[in-house]
């Protein structure tokens, strides 16, 4: 019977083109707006590394002064000082853990005719790539030796590889970062976690870096941070070297801890380090401690999906409700207008349930058409956001989940809205219309 109901639905919708168009437009507007808001919410709330999100931990230390205030729920700074980062990297060699920060360079190939361009760059250790499951297309990370002995080696992503060399395996070749010649040891796939969880400074939806160099270079070359530098202590910090030795917080730190035991051991390691620093009178606070947060906890802690995102989704769904209420009115008028035909069908043997199902299928078809048009509206809405506002490049993109969710939401919501009109028409006394038609 479903295919019969489908044929009847298409005939019925064609027979009232204006009413159908109005209903489709109402549903499409509602779905378009709500899917735009839902996509933004979905993409911002996306788990960027689901396969490892419970095994990767950001590291925080309460290393600030007694009266320092931080804009976090537990009053902890989100970054580490350079000296803490360097100290932490010395211990627990059995686990992968790495310090990192963002800087940037004027990048170009050795070809003198090549026009340089600015690219953000991440200083980190070789563990960064395996910890965050980054796939190498060519070559490999720099060696452990390079992590300990400053060497000008670089890993670039494939987008940059194509821009510099036109693609291909260019490991072993050299490139310029500012005025320094670096040797390319690895080329990774274009990698863009959404959100950019490992460094949420200046927004969690920034582009991932295309250039990666050894962290150890930060100790010998003056590579300033392109991220936040948070200071709490009055201290002389006139030179880059002063900054490295200061209490300024500007380093991100992550650890890969695959088991609960590993996590406990690393937690103890942090506790030991904090106790040691307290003894040295560096950590002044009574609540000085080390904290580990997995990826999801870290994103929640940093309010990556803000409350306003949820409010926007709620408002957009209210708008969808208004659109559906309008559609209910139109559906009711349309269905009651067809009540005489329903009376005939009832006389010819259709049960109330069959009439109800027939009208719900019609509503479903309407919802599907509205949903598909709503997808187009949502796409236009997201494109509009991407083209006119900063920070939407990686968020205002509809993934497959949202793509398939739109028609499902549209059909479900419309069928729900169509229950009352369908019920009204199927409970109408057929004998009234048989005599008066």
């Amino acid at each position, binding site marked *: *019977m479903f295919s*019969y109901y489908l044929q009847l639905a298409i*005939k*019925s919708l064609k*027979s009232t083109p204006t009413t159908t168009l109005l209903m489709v437009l109402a549903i499409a507007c509602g779905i378009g707006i709500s899917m735009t808001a839902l996509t933004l919410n979905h993409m911002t709330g996306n788990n960027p590394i689901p396969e490892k999100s419970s095994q990767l931990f950001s590291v925080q230390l309460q290393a600030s002064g007694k009266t320092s205030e931080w804009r976090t729920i537990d009053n902890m700074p989100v970054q580490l000082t350079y000296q803490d980062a360097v100290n932490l990297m010395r211990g627990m060699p059995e686990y992968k853990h790495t310090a990192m920060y963002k800087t940037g360079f004027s990048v170009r190939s050795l070809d003198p005719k090549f026009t340089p361009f600015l690219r953000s760059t991440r200083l980190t250790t070789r563990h960064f790539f395996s910890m965050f499951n980054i796939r190498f297309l060519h070559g490999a990370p720099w060696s452990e030796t390079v992590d300990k002995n400053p060497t000008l080696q670089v890993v670039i992503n494939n987008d940059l590889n194509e821009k510099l060399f036109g693609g291909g395996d260019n490991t072993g070749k050299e490139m310029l970062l500012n005025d320094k010649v670096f040797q390319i040891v690895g080329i990774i796939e274009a990698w863009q976690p959404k959100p950019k969880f490992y460094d949420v400074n200046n927004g969690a939806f920034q582009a991932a870096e295309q250039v990666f160099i050894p962290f150890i270079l930060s100790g010998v070359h003056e590579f300033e941070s392109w991220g936040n530098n948070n200071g709490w202590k009055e201290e002389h910090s006139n030179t880059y070297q002063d900054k490295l030795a200061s209490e300024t917080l500007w380093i991100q730190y992550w650890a890969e801890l695959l088991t609960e035991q590993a996590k406990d051991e690393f937690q103890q390691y942090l506790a030991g380090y904090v106790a040691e620093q307290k003894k040295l009178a560096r950590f002044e606070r009574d609540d000085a401690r080390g904290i580990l947060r997995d990826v999801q906890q870290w994103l929640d802690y940093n309010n990556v999906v803000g409350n306003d995102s949820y409010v926007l989704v709620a408002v957009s769904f209210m708008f969808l409700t208004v659109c559906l209420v309008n559609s209910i009115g139109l559906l009711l008028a349309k269905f009651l207008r067809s009540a*005489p*035909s329903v*009376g*005939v*069908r*009832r*006389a*010819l*043997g*259709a*049960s*109330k*349930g*069959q009439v109800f199902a027939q009208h719900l299928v019609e509503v479903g078809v309407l919802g599907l058409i509205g949903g598909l048009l709503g997808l187009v509206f949502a796409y236009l809405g997201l494109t509009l956001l991407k083209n006119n506002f900063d920070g939407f490049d990686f968020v205002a993109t509809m993934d497959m989940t949202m793509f398939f969710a739109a028609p499902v939401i549209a059909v479900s919501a419309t069928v729900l809205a169509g229950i009352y009109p369908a019920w009204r028409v199927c409970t109408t*006394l*057929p*004998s009234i219309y*048989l*005599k008066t*038609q």
Partner: protein
Amino acid sequence: MLKMSSINKVYQTELVQTHALRDFSLSVKEGEFVAVTGPSGSGKTTFLNIAGLLENISSGDFQLDGQSIVGLSDSELSRLRNEKIGFIFQGFNLIPDLNLFENVDVPLRYRGFSRKERKQKIEQALEMVGLAARMKHLPSQLSGGQQQRVAIARALAGEPKFLLADEPTGNLDSLMAKQVMELLENINKQGTTIVMVTHDPELARRTQRNIQIVDGQLCDFTMYQGGTVESVNEQEAIA
């Protein structure tokens, strides 16, 4: 075929109670052609709606083809209606968006016939009323008489035992009315029981039996046999 015993039908509003049928008893045998006459508002349509299982009775008993319909669910009543009853209306009641083929197809769809069976039955039914060549036409492209013939084809396609006709010639001119009546007579001769509501005494006279309803009650019975009129008493008519 149809046996109504002491049926009452009461329409209740907040202020008024209307007895549409009062202690109404009637028996129609299989293969009979019965005319129902009576003044407007006498309860003819209510009788027809109840006989067609479109309305419930307030009290009494009603058996259709030996089965009591009292207490049946909507889907059971719909199934009975679909399998045993064919309807012909004064206003034809064809569905305007559907062509002739699709209109005749409606009761067969609810019956669950296969596509092949449906096609065969529809073609047969339209052939019988002489409209097989126009099965792709919409009702609006036909004359009134043709539309009524389609309605008859639709009523007969599922081969019901019992045909209910409500003023089937009421909207037709005399020539068309004659043709439709002849068609109904032929159908009856093939064994289908017909109950026809009509205002036309000429048509009523062509049936086997005429019952008259006044104020919701049966009040007169006349048997027509071979053109002679034979009055019968109430007990005889009910039996």
